[in-house]
């Protein structure tokens, strides 16, 4: 009886604390890259890249992506060259031992908005904006979580006292996030007038982009995987019948 009581007590203490530590429910969207034959939606990723360049990149670095990688998104080499040359990078030392600035080339990686982590923290009220190269893999829920986070800003309920400089977010663990709502309707002008310029659309596009950034080999994985699994399955079926035939003489022997 004592054990049952203590079990019940343990449940009653355990359940609420477990609930509190869990973030809000994250909706699963129908991403094009899902499933075993999924592919990337390049139009959406290109728009997401635009959102990243015009909004996110002001505070977030993306150290592991080079301009040359954009070829996978359907940009031409000339487009990539001109995209890269819009930013300048520090190079050197030259023959005279001096560092110099030059326009970025396709082989250069995306520039970091900060000189170092300390500067990043200092400019952001003590919070460090994470590098976004792997963010879709580094958060439970992946693209679904990113979408939910970007669209999860809301007025803080009366019961919650917000710390200074923090923003209320429905899905962020603890609900207080240092990043202010980055997206708003009409913030970025899309080239195609038919694409809605809503927060939801931006969040969807940028999450698609971040998924591609985190897992650029995803399409190759599925393509190769399909062949490998198919090959092994067929081989397994053949081996099964070889085995059955081979053993027929043994199993029945009296």
């Amino acid at each position, binding site marked *: 009886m004592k054990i049952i009581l*203590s*079990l019940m007590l*343990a*449940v009653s*203490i*355990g*359940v609420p*604390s*477990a609930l509190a*530590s869990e973030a809000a429910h994250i909706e699963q969207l129908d991403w094009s890259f899902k499933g*075993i034959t999924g592919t990337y939606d390049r139009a959406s990723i290109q728009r997401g890249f635009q959102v990243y360049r015009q909004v996110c990149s002001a505070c977030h670095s993306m150290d*592991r992506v080079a301009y040359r*990688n954009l070829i996978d998104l359907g940009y031409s080499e000339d487009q990539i060259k001109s995209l890269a040359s819009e930013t300048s990078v520090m190079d050197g030392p030259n023959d005279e031992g001096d560092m110099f600035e030059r326009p970025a080339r396709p082989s250069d990686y995306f520039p970091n908005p900060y000189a170092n982590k300390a500067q990043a923290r200092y400019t952001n009220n003590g919070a460090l904006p*994470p590098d976004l*190269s*792997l963010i879709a*893999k*580094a*958060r*439970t829920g992946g693209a679904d979580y990113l979408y939910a986070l970007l669209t999860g800003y809301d007025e803080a309920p009366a019961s919650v006292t917000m710390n200074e400089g923090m923003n209320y977010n429905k899905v962020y*663990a603890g609900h207080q996030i240092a990043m202010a709502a980055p997206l708003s309707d009409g913030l970025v002008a899309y080239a195609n007038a038919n694409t809605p310029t809503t927060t939801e659309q931006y969040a969807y596009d940028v999450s698609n982009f971040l998924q591609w950034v*985190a897992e*650029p*080999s995803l399409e*190759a*994985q*599925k393509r*190769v*995987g*399909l062949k*490998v*699994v198919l090959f*092994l*399955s067929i*081989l*397994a079926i053949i*081996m*099964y019948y*070889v*085995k059955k035939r*081979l*053993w027929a003489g*043994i*199993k*029945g022997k*009296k």
Partner: protein
Amino acid sequence: MSSSKRFPFKNPVISWVDERLPIFTLMHQEYAAFPTPKNFNYLWNFGAIAMVMLVLMIVTGISLAMSYNPSADGAFDSVERIMRDVNGGWMLRYLHMNGASFFFLAVYVHMFRGMYYGSYKKPRELLWLLGVTIFLIMMATAFLGYSLPWSQMSGWGATVITSLFSAIPLVGDSIVTWLWGGFSVDNPTLNRFFALHFTLPFVIFAVVFMHIWALHITGSNNPTGIEIQDKKQDSVPFHPYYTIKDSFGLCVFLAVYAAVSFFAPTMLTHADHFIPFDPLITPSHIVPEWYFLPFYAMLRSMDFNIGIPWTDIVLMDSKLFGVLVMFGSIAMLFILPFIDKHPVKSANYRPRYKIALFIMVISFIILGYVGAMPAEGIWPTVGKIFTAVYFAFFAAVWWLNKHEKPKPLPKSIHASVLEKNAKKEAALLKEVES
């Protein structure tokens, strides 16, 4: 090995080599003609599967090592370079990462089969001991490998596990400093982890060789647990009967492994494994890979000090006790052949042992679940209960030595096969009649 008769090979080159070094005769005796019980079920595939996984891990691992940079500053970046810039690098990494999981899966099934059919009993005690040794080295290797990407989970996992040694009285802290090569988990730690992670698989390979050697001295156990009496009736040559059967099982296993590695490669991986290690930020909840979770649960559930009741005297603090319980759970596997003296091997003829074993397996799985949960609320209590159940299994095995009446055994392997066939035929007849 050398004194036995040579096999007459027709090919003159093979014959020439074999006269001077009878390696082909050895292969023929051990892998072709080797008499193997003819009544294996599919659980007997997993030894061969584990062997293939070991080779696969070594091959992908060496390839990865060629592009990996074992330094605290460069490890995470080099792994990402492998993923993005090395040709086929993502495939190597995902096959290696998920390969560890599937290697453990194969070994767990292999061990369960050994326990269910009493393969650890006389005359195969040493065979079992070598197997548990392989399991132990595998655990060390997997843990070391988990540290190498130098992610949040890597660094903090390494910190948690190496800190276990600080539980050793008097010298604990010095040992931890020695293991780390400094006063925290840092570059020297990563360097030695890489060196050991590279070396240990070859140690495993050597022990596997002894494991198979010992197997070929005693011969394989089988679902009845009765030894081969009449070679002609009870056994078949290993090749082609089991090479083909193993190939079938292997293809099915590899297909599942490939499906996970290619379609859901990060399914078994925590998100924190994709954040670079930061010694100043502790993740909210440090968890090992799934195959360590039951042991992790045992470790964490021991949250009480052992002392003299009604006094404040502490004989053993909770940390040391947890470590002892965790290592004790594996030590029990080492002494299992010496606890279980019951003459009947197979659980098919030992109804009580069978129940005890299933309870143990279920409690092990529940412990795995507990290990994945935060150590708060109900979970430490659940962990304590099922840790006790796990250890109670070994006590039960010892008790059953004198308290289990086995079911009647078939006369021979052959007789058991006939009996099974007769049952099948009777069932078929019934179906036809109805």
